């Protein structure tokens, strides 16, 4: 063992650290390299990366296919928007509030839903999105119905004596990037923790996990709530970026987009979700200029995925990454 490792390293050089730094620099310099539209696309990709990260914990690691993510995204968007409009609270308060509200709503929804098996669970989560939209349309005194909630202020910060508001696209990009990095680190921590191992055990064989003392029901509920928290925080970013929230935030298209990010990127891999958000959201946003081509490109992407990358793009990324790292 110890004899072979150094020789492997000596064979090829490890370029992962310089490449990592390069990617980080590109991410930081993006607003100065790309056009405004590219930066806008990146922001949308980062906004959607949050619910996708949460969904990856649920689908990729725990093995529960859910379509409810857009519901929690919408709840987060409304929670942040309503709080900001009513009290003018700073952004971080709204974001935390949005995450907590989404997580809290997930508890009573998860308790009955998680008792259902596979397809019934999927159908049930689909219902949450539809119910969310119906409520946001009809609870007019709170949500202003179809008119939506407008005039949500741009993110405003209050750090001790310093207070400022982020107005430009560049500023918002850095905010989204910072939250995206934090969320990625949070997912990484969950996945690396012993709980992450239990989640994978549930995905691999729930009865076996149960027979080895893992309280699978509790874990599924916790992960369901955790995924909702990620979606809620993503929703708060969405609300503050667009400054408008309408019942259309609760749409199946968003849930499927989040699912495509996770499955297409590579379920159960953090790098897959990051790559998936950039590819599927960034690409569709960037292609908005040519509406006809847009859906065709999106469709082609899905076809390529289904036929050649059944496990998503992440295994390919990992192979390239390891090759850069000097492995065969």
């Amino acid at each position, binding site marked *: 063992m110890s004899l072979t490792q150094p020789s492997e390293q000596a064979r090829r050089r490890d370029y992962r650290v310089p490449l990592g730094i390069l990617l980080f620099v590109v991410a930081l310099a993006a607003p100065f390299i790309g056009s405004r539209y590219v930066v806008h696309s990146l922001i949308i990709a980062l906004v959607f990366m949050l619910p996708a990260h949460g969904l990856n914990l649920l689908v990729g690691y725990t093995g529960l296919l859910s379509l409810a993510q857009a519901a929690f995204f919408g709840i987060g968007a409304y929670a942040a928007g309503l709080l900001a409009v009513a009290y003018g609270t700073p952004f971080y308060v709204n974001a935390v509030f949005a995450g907590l509200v989404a997580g809290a709503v997930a508890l009573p929804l998860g308790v009955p839903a998680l008792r259902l098996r596979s397809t019934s669970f999927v159908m049930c989560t689909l219902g949450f999105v539809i119910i969310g939209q119906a409520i946001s349309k009809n609870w007019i005194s709170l949500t202003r119905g179809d008119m939506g909630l407008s005039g949500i202020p741009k993110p405003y910060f209050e750090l001790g004596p310093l207070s400022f508001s982020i107005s430009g696209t560049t500023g918002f990009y850095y905010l989204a990037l910072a939250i995206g990095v934090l969320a990625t680190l949070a997912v990484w921590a969950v996945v690396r*923790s*012993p*709980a992450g191992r*239990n989640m*994978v055990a549930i995905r*691999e*064989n729930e009865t076996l996990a149960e027979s*080895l003392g*893992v*309280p699978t029901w509790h874990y599924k509920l916790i992960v369901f709530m955790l995924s909702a928290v990620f979606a809620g925080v993503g929703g708060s970013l969405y609300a503050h970026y667009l400054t408008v929230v309408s019942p259309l935030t609760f749409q199946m298209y968003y849930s499927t987009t989040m699912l495509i990010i996770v499955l297409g990127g590579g379920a159960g891999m953090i790098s897959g979700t990051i790559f998936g958000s950039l590819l599927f959201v960034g690409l569709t946003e960037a292609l908005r200029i040519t509406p006809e081509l847009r859906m065709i490109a999106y469709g082609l992407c899905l076809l390529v995925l289904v036929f050649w990358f059944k496990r998503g793009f992440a295994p390919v990324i990992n192979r390239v990454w390891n090759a850069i790292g000097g492995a065969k």
Partner: protein
Amino acid sequence: MTNHLPLLDIRNLSKSYGAVKAVNDVSMHIDRGEIAGLIGPNGSGKSTFFDCSTGLARPDSGIVVLDGQDITGWSLNRIAREGRMLRSFQKTVTFRALDVEENLIIAGQMFAFPSILSTFGVGKRSRQRISGLRERAHELIRMAGLWDVRHQPAGNLSGGQQKLIQFASMLMPEPKLILLDEPMAGINPKIIERVVETILYANKSLGVSFLVIEHNIDVVTSICRRVIVLDQGTKLVEGLPQDIIQDQRVREAYLGG
């Protein structure tokens, strides 16, 4: 005082599926340090009896007492975690995508961490607990003869090797009692020897008691001190293995007489 009580005491257990009485008023006990055998023809209710005793299924009536505590109605995971009574499944199951070492670490996790919340920790304390589990896993992997394949995904290994993984996994939490559902089914004689050795080692050195469902009569007579026979959901007879194989009622049950 409590040491005179049986480790597992099951009284008047019944379970029906529709009109079929799968288990009908069965009582039995397992003493501390004992290896008991449970035999009977196919469909005699052995597996249902296991399921009802370990929380996978809920018995219609009857009580299950483990180490002086009534555990009737507890869930499978709670009986494993708090009762330290573990079970295997007839069909060999492992976490196929995970390597052997990870399989064993998962088996020990819920016993090394005090609460669900604490399993979300990634700090030093959590890492220490995991490295403790890894050491124990290494010991058991060596004992099971799986050292060379410890980094292989469990799904890539042979049925017999997976049986050994399953078995080693159940030893991770320092169990009091293990219920084995046909541990020798479908594995080659070499692995059978290995499994027998491991059972005897766990029994003598680790103080684990066993209840074993097994069709291989040679194995039953060599490791069990007491055998219980089920037939059509009821207890037919129990006694020493050599007496059981001579028993006329048992022969009739097996031959369908």
